[in-house]
């Protein structure tokens, strides 16, 4: 009997495996993004100078790239999960399950609405 050995780079052999890996890495990166936001709150609590210093640090080219990459992974994580929700649907609100594309669209619309509401509450408008 010849034992199975998973090949190196298995996740590059199928685009869906690659998307899965990006989703999983996206989960970790979303955690880092949350830590960054938490650090922002800490600086906010420390006073106006610390808060201004935090934003000055964010404005550096390196941090702009880092934040853009983090945000990209957060989007991949969110959108891939929105799509999976439609495939699983353990909780059904209708007699026939909704199509995955419909569930995806509903989640994206809700996400945009909630984000808009949060922005409105925090900044008093977009």
């Amino acid at each position, binding site marked *: 009997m010849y034992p199975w050995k998973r090949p190196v780079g298995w996740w590059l052999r199928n685009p869906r495996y690659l998307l899965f890996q990006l989703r999983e890495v996206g989960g970790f990166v979303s955690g880092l993004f949350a830590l960054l936001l938490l650090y922002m709150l800490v600086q906010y609590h420390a006073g106006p100078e610390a808060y201004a210093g935090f934003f000055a640090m964010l404005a550096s080219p390196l941090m702009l790239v880092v934040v853009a990459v983090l945000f990209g992974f957060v989007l991949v994580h969110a959108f891939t999960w929105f799509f*999976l929700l439609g495939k699983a649907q353990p909780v059904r609100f209708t007699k026939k399950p909704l199509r995955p594309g419909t569930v995806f669209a509903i989640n994206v619309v809700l996400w945009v609405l909630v984000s808009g509401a949060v922005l409105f509450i925090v900044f008093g408008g977009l």
Partner: protein
Amino acid sequence: MAEREVVFRVKRYRPERDAAPTYQDYRIPYTDDMVVLDGLNYIKDKMDSTLTFRWSCRMGICGSCGASVNGKLRLTCGTFIKDVRSKTVVVDPMPNFPILKDLVVDFDDFLQKLLEVKPFILRDEERPLSEGEYLQTPEEIEAYRQQSMCINCMLCYSACPVFGASEHFIGPAASALAYRYIRDSRDEGADARLDVLSTKTGIWECTFVGECSVVCPKDVDPAAAIQNLKVIASIRHMRQLLLPKSAPR
């Protein structure tokens, strides 16, 4: 029907002489109505009788002839050579399983897992035959019909990277079959199955890659079955936590 030629590049492993699997090429004639399994049988009958592979029904029911065809997991009886759209048809044994010989892999591990989830109707107490059949409404049948289509072809295990990384994972087909019986209105064995399924190497090891459902030739959707099982197991756990006297143990 016009006859053309194609090269079959087949993975060979003969344990008595090979240290590792290698490919062997066979140039064979084919017509538009030939499937990959026909090609393998042509090689076996006319060119090389030592080539070893599993097959039985030739009509997508027995689930014996799964393989990787040009990197895609398929039943070879349901894959037309012309649809491969390549001058070379590369046939590999199903990934994630040890190879016994050529395209034949070892399924013993799955068979053991299948037994553990008790893929049959369990009753606390059997009704006497004189009381007649256990009747079901069309809606009750629909609740498990999709998962009852599983033919144990194992393509879902080959597609599952979680099983590829951890052979202890109970896997898609066994979970889907467990779900099939849990959803059956005649069955009373949900708790016995959830004891096996709701463990670290059971449904909670699934990270929802979803490829098992993509490759399933019978549209069983094991990925959705596992997510549904997670909900059922969570509700059961919360009942045990909050209502310990009424919840089953």
